[in-house]
């Protein structure tokens, strides 16, 4: 390798390191992302120029691939709705893992077709790295695709909505371990017989299966943690591929993402008061029988709620996934403006770390509606304010406010929640009394001080705003 190529890769690695560092702080995050993109550009240009200088750059194939991929990526990134963002991140992640595994497979295929199978140490390193890259890469692809459909909640087949299943009996855990061992054995066998592609295809098949059985039992609020773990894995896959082709850029960037992604996964687990083994091996929600509803609650109407808010000193809005689905963040902002002007009410927003389907989901949506950042208060800080809050308005949130989480039993046990039940009055805007993602009935709905507004978030908020204007 030419010296300047190595320096080009070193520069891009340095840019990735600075980029990741800056991505961790709110003020510098956009700049960090740009640094990362610049690092990638440097790496790609370095590679293409080195090919060009060697006189063998195949512009047709490379150009077509880059153009096609960029176009698809661009369209997907621009078109995606704010609610669909977590799914898109999962999908991109799957593509990244698959790309690493495909490069590994392509290298092996080249050795076999060209009759240039390496020997000795190189053979061992190549086969081990290719096997591990296949394991992690294909697992990332199938796991991410399943995670994407789990985040969506289901898939539409011929107009029929099929709910993504959550299934994980406890005997599945030893099966996962056995699958990993099987891959290790197959890698060992493939070193002895490198041209036998049966081993390679078996590894690919088992890895695909492993990704599915890993994600299948996981549901509810744990989904973002799994996507983060898969993100870490796709980095590791890139690093292993780097060993096969002997490329320092892949090794450095891949292991950076692998390690920092793992740390981020732990941070996210901690924010939800869960541990990673719990997330991975203890099925959360949805797996057991959903609690059947035996209680009923009479719904209120917008006028009643509007009258109650008239005179409230302090209102805390608790948004959840329902707000994202009905896209009513603009109506929520209008509501906040209305009551702060008309009744001189103090309005704050309580943001649960995993409200919605990804961390920061609510911040993104509310920022889109121009809600001032300082009104968005994180859970730990705002919980102490609920006892002095006149009205808590819960919009499409369920599990994140469920007092059952404090009881220490059931799927929600130990998850920190928003203490909306401590407010003097609670207004809940929700389509029905049905259970949330975790499948646990919510006592908050049935409290005497709770008023339910049954309906779509957007319709209900519009109705509430009109009612307040008429007062």
């Amino acid at each position, binding site marked *: 390798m030419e010296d300047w190529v190595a320096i080009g890769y070193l520069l891009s690695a340095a840019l990735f390191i600075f980029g990741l560092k800056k991505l961790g702080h709110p003020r510098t*995050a956009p700049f960090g992302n740009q640094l990362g993109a610049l690092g990638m550009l440097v790496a790609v240009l370095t590679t293409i120029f080195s090919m060009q200088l060697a006189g063998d750059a195949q512009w047709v194939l490379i150009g077509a691939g880059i153009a096609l*991929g960029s176009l698809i990526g661009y369209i997907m990134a621009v078109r995606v709705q704010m609610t669909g963002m977590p799914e898109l991140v999962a999908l991109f*992640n799957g593509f*990244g893992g698959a790309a690493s595994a495909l490069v590994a497979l392509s290298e092996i295929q080249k050795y076999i077709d060209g009759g240039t199978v390496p020997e000795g140490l190189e053979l061992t390193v190549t086969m081990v790295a290719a096997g591990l890259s296949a394991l992690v890469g294909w697992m990332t692809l199938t796991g991410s695709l399943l995670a994407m459909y789990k985040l969506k909640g289901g898939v539409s087949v011929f107009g029929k909505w099929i709910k993504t299943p959550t299934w994980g009996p406890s005997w599945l855990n030893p099966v996962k371990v056995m699958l990993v061992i099987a891959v290790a054995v197959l890698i060992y066998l493939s070193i002895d017989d490198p041209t036998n592609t049966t081993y390679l295809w078996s590894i690919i098949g088992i890895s695909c299966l492993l990704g599915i059985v890993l994600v299948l039992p996981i549901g509810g609020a744990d989904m973002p943690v799994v996507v983060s773990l898969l993100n870490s894995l796709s980095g590791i896959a890139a690093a292993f591929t780097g060993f096969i082709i002997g490329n320092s850029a892949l090794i450095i960037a891949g292991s950076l993402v*692998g390690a920092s992604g793992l740390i981020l996964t732990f941070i996210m687990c901690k924010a939800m008061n869960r541990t990673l083994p719990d997330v991975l091996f203890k099925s959360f929600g949805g797996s057991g029988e959903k609690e059947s509803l035996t209680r009923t609650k009479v719904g209120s109407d917008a006028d009643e709620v509007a009258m109650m808010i008239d005179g409230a000193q302090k209102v805390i809005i608790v948004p959840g996934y329902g707000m994202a689905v009905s896209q009513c963040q603009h109506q929520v902002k209008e509501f906040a403006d209305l009551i702060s002007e008309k009744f001189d009410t103090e309005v704050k927003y309580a943001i649960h770390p995993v409200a919605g389907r990804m961390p920061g989901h609510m911040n993104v949506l509310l*920022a889109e509606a121009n809600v001032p950042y300082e009104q968005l208060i994180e859970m730990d800080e705002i919980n102490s304010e609920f006892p002095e809050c006149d009205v808590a308005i819960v919009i499409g949130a369920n599990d994140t406010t469920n007092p059952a989480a404090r009881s220490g039993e059931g799927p929600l046990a130990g998850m920190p929640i928003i203490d909306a039940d401590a407010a003097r009055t609670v207004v809940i805007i929700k389509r029905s009394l049905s259970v949330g993602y975790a499948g646990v009935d919510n006592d908050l709905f049935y409290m005497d001080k709770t008023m339910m507004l049954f309906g779509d978030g957007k319709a209900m908020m519009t109705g509430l705003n009109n009612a307040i204007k008429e007062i």
Partner: protein
Amino acid sequence: MTPELLIGNITLFVLAIFLGFELITKVPATLHTPLMSGANAISGISIIGALIGANVAYESGDTAISGILAFVAVVLAMINVVGGFMVTNRMLNMIAGKKRRGA
């Protein structure tokens, strides 16, 4: 591949992992998703491997399957890179961009 080269690569691997562990310390919940998305875009670095693989396969001519695999890898990695950085940028503009105006 000489043993020296292998040791060199393993050294890079181990040191980069330690660096990655140290790089991320305290991250506010708001930034979890953008950080994940940005790191994910960086893991699209396999574009380099895909480009090299596609180039070599196309040149040698007799490894059609290898070439096709590498081409698909180029497309997928490019989607990951371009889409990943752009989506992260969109998210951050919503979170951090508004914050600056609001503050």
